[in-house]
């Protein structure tokens, strides 16, 4: 915690070594968040750059009360949502394209262990609308009401999108499980 304080104070003064230390400590974690929301890796890299610029410019507003990591996560999530809103027009088009596939009956989810990379590959392929709501509800822990306010959508829309996202992810994971079983045999 003392190290955090030193890094934060250095970043407030604009010390480059402190900024580098902050980047080395949290860049991977924040890149993971950006990847979950972004459409692809290049977009996630751009969002991560924006996240760190925001962190360096606004680190003085961190009041040392809550968790510093939580504060950083919140900046990454908010920047990712802003990026999602910017690309909303194209994302909507993609959602419509994927709507036919996701309306199929829910897949029976196999109770298997999956690695983070396997889950991430499934989430990356998810339509942007599903992905955002799924991340906000399941991983960030927001309620449907909060999500509806953040994304300026109806609460029922948030619920239906989450249900579809869940079906999509379960189906993709089942495909991965099938491939695993075939490879094992």
């Amino acid at each position, binding site marked *: 915690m003392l190290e955090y304080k030193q890094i934060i104070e250095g970043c407030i003064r604009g010390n480059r070594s402190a900024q580098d230390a902050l980047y080395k400590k949290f*860049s991977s974690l924040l890149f993971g968040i950006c990847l979950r929301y972004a459409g692809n890796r290049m977009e996630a890299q751009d969002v991560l*750059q924006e996240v760190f610029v925001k962190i360096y410019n606004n680190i003085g507003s961190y009041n040392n009360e809550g968790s510093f990591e939580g504060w950083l996560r919140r900046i990454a999530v908010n920047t990712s949502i802003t990026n999602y809103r910017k690309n909303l027009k194209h994302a909507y088009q993609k959602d419509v394209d994927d709507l036919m596939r996701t309306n199929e009956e829910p897949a029976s989810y196999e109770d298997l262990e999956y690695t983070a990379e396997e889950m991430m590959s499934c989430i990356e392929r998810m339509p942007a609308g599903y992905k955002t709501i799924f991340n906000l509800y399941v991983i960030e822990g927001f309620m449907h009401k909060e999500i509806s306010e953040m994304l300026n959508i109806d609460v029922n829309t948030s619920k239906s999108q989450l249900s579809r996202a869940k079906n999509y992810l379960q189906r993709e994971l089942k495909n991965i499980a099938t491939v695993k079983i075939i490879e094992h045999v």
Partner: protein
Amino acid sequence: MSEDRFFQQVKATMADYSPEVPESVYVGIRKKLWWSNFTRLSVTRFNIWYLAILITGAAAAISVSQAADSAETENAVQLQTSADASGGVMAVTESAPSEEPAASGVQPEEQTSANNTVDPMPAKNHAVAQTDLTAQETESPNQPKQASATEELSESVNQNPQTVQPSESKTASKKGLKVKTYNSGDK
């Protein structure tokens, strides 16, 4: 399998997902950070606002100097056209001063010789001037009257030294030196 369990499994797997970040991201962050600092208004640091002021000042200075140059050019053209319209009268008046130095170039020698004969000299330079003038008198017999007049004047100065003013003595010493140089040049 319940919905909560599935979501918990996904959350536990994905919460600390930390993939490797490409190095190009760090370079991009430094560039964006520099630009962000450069565009931010700050008194203590050179930024885009100072640059804007510099560029505006430079542009204003260039435009003012160009306007001045064009005005000078217009004046010169107007003078030339008015000179052409006056049928060469201006050309004569303009060329007149250039002839003056040629005419005045002859005069100084005459003036110095005339001054030597008229202006009184200080006491210490008088003897030198007198010997020079006597030498001049012997070398140039064509000017007997001028030399005799000088001798008379120098004698009158010696008899009445209080009549010579300090300012006159300074100019006279200068002129006396000129005379000395002139004579040595002749020799």
